[in-house]
């Protein structure tokens, strides 16, 4: 018998600390598999966020840098400008990317920085115990919206892919989900397309991955997948929001 599925070399042997059923593990694996399959691991530098994935630097087998909360795209910009031949990605949650880091996210995108952002959207702040995130749904109960998110006082969720797709520097923006095996396959294709766009110097790429947080949603891992399907996908539709990977965003005189 031949091995048809085993752990990729782009992941270290350190076991993930994530909660049972947390989809971070799936997403880490997809990113690592893509790096391995495209033979990029040796020249990749990843930027870890502040959030549940703060220890991401222990799990990826490439050089890693820890960024302050929200600052990963700025750190990634510094790395890419210093080492233009490297492959640079950030891995960020919804607080990191869409709350404190909104400016860094928007400006790295509009500058067309040749980096790849993996955006893990689980509509809640996981690490700090389940507070409202910018992507928390209307009516969703969290620690800081105990009566459900009231859009009159707490405002509306932000749709990142839609928002970033208005920027000319964005070469590729796709929203995917990891709630089913089929969706996981689509997600991996998106990650591969994003990193390929970076290799080809096409511009900024982002893959937004709808994810679960069983612990803070108060659901079992399997129930959490159902909740994602029923509530998040309708609000955050899956699909490609920008694809300029043929020509890219840079002009070459």
């Amino acid at each position, binding site marked *: 018998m031949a091995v048809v599925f085993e752990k990729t070399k782009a992941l*270290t042997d350190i076991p993930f600390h994530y909660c049972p059923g947390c989809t971070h593990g799936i997403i880490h694996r997809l990113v690592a598999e893509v790096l391995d399959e495209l033979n990029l*691991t*040796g*020249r*990749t*530098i990843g*930027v*870890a966020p502040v959030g549940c994935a*703060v220890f991401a*630097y*222990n799990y*990826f*087998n*490439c*050089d*890693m*840098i*820890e*960024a*302050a909360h929200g*600052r990963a795209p*700025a*750190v*990634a*910009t*510094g*790395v*890419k*400008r*210093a*080492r233009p031949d*490297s492959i640079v990605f950030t891995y960020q949650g919804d607080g990191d990317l869409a709350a404190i880091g909104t*400016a*860094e996210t*928007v*400006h790295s995108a509009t500058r067309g920085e040749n980096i790849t952002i993996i955006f893990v959207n689980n509509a809640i702040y996981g690490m700090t115990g389940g507070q409202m995130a910018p992507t928390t749904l209307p009516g969703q109960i969290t620690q800081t919206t105990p009566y459900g998110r009231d859009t009159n006082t707490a405002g509306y969720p932000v749709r990142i892919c839609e928002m970033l797709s208005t920027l000319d520097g964005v070469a590729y923006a796709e929203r995917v989900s990891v709630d089913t095996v089929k969706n996981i396959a689509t997600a991996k294709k998106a990650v591969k397309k994003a990193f390929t766009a970076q290799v080809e110097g096409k511009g900024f790429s982002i893959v937004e991955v709808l994810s679960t947080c069983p612990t803070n949603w108060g659901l079992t891992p399997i129930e959490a997948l159902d909740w994602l399907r029923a509530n998040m996908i309708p609000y955050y539709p899956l699909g490609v929001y920008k694809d300029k990977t043929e020509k890219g965003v840079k002009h070459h005189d």
Partner: protein
Amino acid sequence: MADKVLMKGNEALAEAAIKAGCRHFFGYPITPQTEISAHMSKRMPKIGGTYLQAESEIAAINMVLGAAAAGVRAMTSSSSPGISLKSEGVSYIAGSDLPCLIIDVMRAGPGLGGIQPSQSDYWQVTRALGHGDFQLLVFAPSTVQEMVDFVFDAFDMADKYRMPAVILADGMLGQMMEPVEFRRGDVTDLPEKPWAACGHQNKREHNIVNSLYIDPPALEKLVQERYKKYEQIKETEQKAEEYLTEDADIIVVAYGASARIVKSAVNSARKLGLKAGMIRPITLWPFPDKVITRRADTAKAFLAVEMSMGQMVDDVRLAVGGKKPVHFFGRTGGIIPTPAEVLEQIKTILGGAK
């Protein structure tokens, strides 16, 4: 022999950074240091370097973190309100043991304050520009030539000790024009950085540049090791200029633009037969306490002169150790003290001291 060129302080500093091998500048406009950004924006594209006008001073310092982590000489510059924005980033850079250069061309504060020169960021940069236990190397130029020379020292020492360096200037130095020489040519032999996160090329274990150490004993050990390094720096890298201090009854301590004014006042005092002298700290961290402690045995009094409500004077008092009285004179709000005002202070203090 290098030619002398008349240059504005900000521009001379920027040019020196390029000659020191810096090819990555991330900045944001703010008065009175925008010329540094403008100069970099003209020069960097021509030499294959990076000039990036970031969306904020916060983004700029984080870009510096990234570039420094990737192993290159990186810098940013700002003025007081922008330096406050960088606090978080500087703490992360120090906590990650990364070298870099930060320029603070001080203006009046607090808050939006004013755009005229001041020295009221002294505490901010010497007590550590951010949360946690750490120190930065701090250099205080007093002439446009020093705006040039200290850039080389700052980058060299930052690389050697793996910590951020600050050049603490003020609006007057940034804007004034003086002849300068670029005595050190284009630096090309930069030190190796085996710890950098620059892509392992499958030839080594992956490098991690971070500042999170969740295990308390591990974090304590790391911080203590850093402090052993700081102790060594305090022993060997203190620098100050002494002017007519040997027989001085009163020693005036001042740095940066204030020192130029004090020197003038000291000369006037000497003409009046008053034995005044000056100690001009060149490194603000490590503070040159050794020379002050030594002169506290011979001088009768000290006077700190700053463009602030009195920040460096704390360090003067600590160094004098209660042996002699330490006075303070300062102007703030963007006002530069005059030599005449300082001379009055000297006269008053010596008149009273018996």
